[in-house]
């Protein structure tokens, strides 16, 4: 049973302000010192339609901290939980055995496994000491396509659907 959280945070994304510069992706890697191959945030190009009416849309994607996280539900070790105070989906590194079942369960392909094999992912930089600046991915975006917002559970679920649709469109 996943405890309900009253407050939900998310890094919102506006596709019409994204130019796919990948600044957010690398800001995250650099500031969080991620090892090779690990990415908490990734920028995707999504094709829509066919030549000559072909278009592409952009998506900068990281953990959405879902209201009902599929990763937590799937984890056989109960290593993943949703934090009550702020809705963050967190991994207990002492419990996770790196089996990767969460990665299969997540529709957004979020879970990452670095050198130690333990699941890791975006934590919204909530524990980083950023001197009141926004998380590096948000801070660095030239189009201000990303923004940290506080939402209700129902708003968060709408956002989850929107991102899932965008992903499916490509």
């Amino acid at each position, binding site marked *: 049973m996943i405890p309900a959280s009253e407050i939900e945070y998310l890094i919102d994304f506006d596709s019409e302000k994204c130019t796919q*510069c990948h600044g957010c992706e690398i800001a995250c890697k650099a500031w969080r010192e991620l090892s090779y191959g690990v990415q908490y945030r990734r920028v995707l190009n999504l094709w829509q339609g066919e030549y*000559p009416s072909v278009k592409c849309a952009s998506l900068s994607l990281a953990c959405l901290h879902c209201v009902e996280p599929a990763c937590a539900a799937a984890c056989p070790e109960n290593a993943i939980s949703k934090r009550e105070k702020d809705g963050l989906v967190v991994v207990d590194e002492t419990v996770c055995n790196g089996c990767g079942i969460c990665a299969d369960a997540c529709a957004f392909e979020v879970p990452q496994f670095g050198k130690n094999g333990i699941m890791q992912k975006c934590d919204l930089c*909530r524990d980083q000491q950023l001197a009141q600046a926004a998380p590096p991915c948000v801070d660095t975006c030239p189009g201000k396509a990303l923004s940290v917002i506080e939402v209700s559970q129902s708003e968060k679920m709408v956002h989850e659907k929107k991102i899932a649709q965008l992903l499916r469109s490509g």
Partner: protein
Amino acid sequence: MVAVNKNQTKSERYFNKALIVFQFELLYITSIQYLTSEVDMDFKQALQYARINGEECIPTVCGMCGPGGPGGGCGIYAFVKDGRFKKVAGMDESPVNNGAICAKGHAAPQWVYSPDRLTHPLKRIGKKGEGKFEKISWNAAIDHIAEVLTQQKKTFGAESLAILSPARRSYSEYLHRFLTAHGSPNYGHSGICFMQREFAYCYTVGDFPRPDYGQSDLIIYWGRQPIYSGPVAKPARAFIAAKQRNAKMIAIKPSVEPDVGLADIWVPVRPGTDAALALAMLNVVIAENLIDHVFVDKWCYGFKRLQAHVRAYDPKWAENISGVPASQIVEVARLYATTPRAAIDLGNGVEHAPSASDAIRAIAILMAITGHLDRQGGNIFAMPPKAAPKDILLKERYTPDLINKLVGPEFPVAFQPFLEEPTSAYYRILESVLTGKPYPVRTVIAPGTQASVSTRGTKNVLAALRKLDFFVVVDVARTADIPYADIVIPVATSYEVDHPFQMVPGWLMATNRVIEPVGPFKSIFEFFLDLGNAMGYGDEFWNGDIGEAMDDQLEPLGMNMTELRQQPSGVVYPSGPPVYEKFEAVFNRRSASLNQGPYLPQGKVALYNTTFEKAGFSPLPEWREPPESLNATPELTEKYPLILSDYHTSKNFSASWQRNVPHLREIQPDPVLHIHPQAAAVRRIVENDWVIVKSPHGWMKVKAEIYPGIRPDTVMILHGWWQGCQELGVEDFPLADGGTNVNNMYSVDPEKAYDPLVTAMTSQTLVQVEKWEAS
């Protein structure tokens, strides 16, 4: 002066004053709050972040796409922990990047600490191309180069030295200064970037007409990549802003990139056929009388002759060449001509074809006769800067004698020097080594550029590098040309030195040292100062004193480097209110050529160009086919049915640099050929297959990316692939046949491969693509 306290960190010593403010602020901030607003990092926050996390913060200028270069000069806060450069944040106060910074900027520490960094000056001990060297000292290297250059000057004349141009950099002027002091005009400009537009624009409308994006209701991005050329710079932000206010956007290019994804209309033009498209648009607006007669009567020369000339270029004709449906050509021409606030942002894509100058002239004429020049929301002429640092080009030494020594003039000698300095075409310098015509260049210095992956004709380039008497490579990291070098000079990145000052429109900023150099070397500025000194040109090179060089140039701005450094986020020069319709002044500008004749002899837009006519070129823009194309060489299409061209910019690499940086390589790990799903399917090619791409001139082996957003008759690849990435276990690719270097694929036929006026080199050919079957 503030007294220096030894317990303070370096950044604190720089910014004592600001620290007092910061300490005051700190009293109020007892805990880190989680903010939901959009806050970019300013100096106070950067210092605060550094203090909290036990790091140092050094404000400086990003060095990843070449400060002073096209997208360069972004302000950053660099963070250092335990003496190691860790990361950067965009500087909120910088008017260049407004707090944002791109992927390349963030990857800077990996570039600085790359195993591919050059660490010691090297001298060749093996055969050319073998790559065997011995370590020598910085001073021994300088002395050796000076000795060779002095000897060659005596024997062959000063013009036997050429310096190959990197993309525009803050050190570019030093290269010119060295050449002029030495007595050689042979600055090898690429012939494929910016100057081609500048030239055709200046001799057609008197100046470079810049899009007034902020005010436009319609923006045509033509052969332009507004994003990758500088993702956090003004054009990219203007692009987003235009989208947000629902301005209509049209993208003219052969494939869909993110900018096309946000545009309203995509015009999928065949590579290298922009001139045909532009001529047809002229045909439409004149035939349909969509022109500004008042402007044409008062400010244009030769309308009647233009009118008669473009009658032949109807949209059906252009459809056959460009592949753009005639109906779409008519639609776009009408939309542009009838939208009062409409701008064209013409990009580097039009500068890679034998008809480049014609395309640019035709587009400039289109702006003029439809009344879009220097009007709100159209294409405007920039006001000259109010303040500028001292000009360090030795212009008083430009003489007919010097100009006549150009080994392969980028622009005809009658037009030299164009803009600021005399230039030879980059490729033609190397060609002279092989042909001896008009004379062979003996020494090439390659600072921040790699000939074998930057210019066309790879096999000839490699032969020239092998044959050169003396070849000097000056760079930060390993380049493709190094095995052929006689001397290799490693230089510091801009993170390891405290110069130069960076001046971009609206902003002046000091480069501040982030870390000590990671090896026994100096900056590229100091290299030319030291070499100048050793050559006996000390008077022209501030006697080797870099501090004096900086202060001398800053003097007209009323400050020195120490004073500038005390401004942690530099000095912002606000721009004045725009002044439109400066026709009288702009159409009477004098050129920089030796006779200083006007760009426009009639004081009017040159629809009919008497200057070009007099010099033996067409007075009206024409259509010229690429060396190989579906129309020019139908006999080749059975064997080579697809058009090949290349991308000049990418989202994560600067030209042919930085493939060795893991963060950037992970974004784009493989050299991929964009191929339409239909073109792939008939060849049984699927995503990530290795494929062979064959042209009449060479072949490469690359990976296929099935790309729905490209013309089905065209395939494209990013240029500049060769380098591996040690950290990710990726090896180098071969430079010529069988490698990934697109330059190897094109014609360099002197009769066909160049624009005759501006020496733009072709980047179009015909190819076949086949699945690679490993045997």
